[in-house]
Every structure is written in structure tokens, then in C-alpha cells.
């Protein structure tokens, strides 16, 4: 089950259903500050929806 993630820039809770993917890197846009937080997928069992953990600020490059 997906745990609550927090924005790497402003620390507010991230509201999302599915992360976005740009250039093979997953990220979530914070509704509070607009910055993007980089996330990576956790290992899950087959057919279980992927869950994600934060890894820092998404540079966007």
C-alpha cells in the first residue's frame, strides 16, 4: 500500500494517484508549492500496483 509522501521542497503532503514519468524518471508535482519531487518505485509483488518512495527534488533535466 502506498504510504504518504511529502514534498522534498516544502515538506507538505503530496497528493497524487500516479506519478508522472519524464525521461525514465518518476516525479510528483506538489500542489502546494509547485515543485517536483523525485520518486522511485519500490519492489512489489506481481500484479500489485507499484508503490513509490521519495528520493529528493526532481531536477527536471
Amino acid at each position, binding site marked *: 500500500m502506498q504510504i504518504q509522501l511529502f514534498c522534498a521542497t516544502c515538506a507538505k503532503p503530496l497528493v497524487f*494517484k*500516479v*506519478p*508522472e*514519468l519524464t525521461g*525514465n524518471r*518518476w516525479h510528483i508535482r506538489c500542489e502546494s508549492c509547485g515543485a517536483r519531487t523525485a520518486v*522511485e*518505485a519500490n519492489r*512489489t*509483488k*506481481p*500484479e500489485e*500496483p*507499484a508503490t*513509490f518512495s521519495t528520493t529528493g527534488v526532481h531536477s527536471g533535466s
Partner: protein
Amino acid sequence: MANRDPRNNHLLAALPEESYQRLLPDLDLIAMPLGWVLYESGMPLKHVYFPVSGIVSLLYVTNNGASSEISITGNEGLVGISLFMGGESTTNRAVVQCAGHAYRMPATALKREFALGGEFQHLALRYTQTLITQMAQTSVCNRHHTLDQQLCRWLLLSIDRLEGAELIMTQELIANMLGVRREGVTEAAGRLQQAGLISYSRGHIHVLKRPALEKRVCECYAVVKNEFRRLLPYQMSA
């Protein structure tokens, strides 16, 4: 976020409006990270998947751990044909080869729509025939054609399912897909790079001269592509 629209899956886009609206409430957007397993060999499927981006590989893994790719699916098709073919499970594994997004739909909703016998059923069956063609041609290619040709075929089929001409894939992973040693992929990719057809650096493969790659590939690529065009009323990106 245009590529997250359900109609970026070409099967869903080809449905009549009435059929599409019937399915829409049951379509759930999910992320498909690289390496995520949609289903394992022998596992009863609970969902069907309609990719809108990324690529899913169907693999067979032998008892000694070697693997070989049987087919690939991107936004031109669906993953989980055994749900409407009646088998409920298969002997292969479906794993995400290139990360993306998909819409998944519960098996019950899929079977309900398939049982109506309308356009969804027709599209699903025609897509299945293209998949069979792809699988059969992969078998022929692996038996009769060189590794260079197999790599060209695999690159072209993959790029057809992605936006742009770039693929992010390690040589080890390509070797697993083709069922060969990594060293062989290194040599074959090196030859393509030397010929100026691709650039390959740190897992990033960029197809530089697609027409030249299509000349170098064996007949298997065209067989698969032409059969797809014949059976389905929409086109892949290439």
C-alpha cells in the same frame, strides 16, 4: 500529460464511443515502473492492461533461469489475452521493459464487454492474431537470423512503441530479452554504432538512421508490422 489519456492506447481509441464509455468507469490508471511484473507464469490474471506508454515484454524463463522474450506490447495493444481466450493464466511472465503508464481493468469487466460480441471482441481477437504473428516470427528469427538482425528487429519493434527514437536499456537486459550472452549484444550493438545506425551510451540507445536500420533488419520486422497494419484499423507511430 497527454500520454495518460486512455485513448492513447490505440485499441481503446478504436472502440465505438458507446463501447468506450461503457469501459471507462472500470479503467484505472497505474504506473508501470521498469521491471514491474504484471503477472507471473501460471498466475491467474485478475486484470487486463492497456498501456498508454512504455513497453511490456512477455518472457519465458527456463528452469535454469535463462529467459527469452516472446513478444512485446506497447500502446498498440493489451496485456492479458488469456482472460478472454479462456485460459485465465499463461506459461509466461509479463514484465515492464520500458517504464510507462497503463490503464488496468478488472477481469470481470473485460469478460463482460468481450461477451457482448461487438467491436471490442473483434478488436481483441484481431490484436491477438497480431500477437501470435509476432511470437511466431520471433521464433523464426531466433532460429534462422543473425544476432545483428535480431537486435535490429528488436530495436525497431521497441521504437515503434515509444515516443521518439530513444530507448533506455542495458545490454544485460537486451541479452535477456534476446536469450543470448551479453557479450554478443555488446558486439552487435558495437557494429551498429560503428555503422552510424545507433548511438549507445550508458544504457541510452538512440536510433540515428532508421531507414538504414530497416534495410539491415531481416524480413521478420516487416512481416510483423505488415500483419499488424492488415488486421487493425489504426497505426503505430512509425
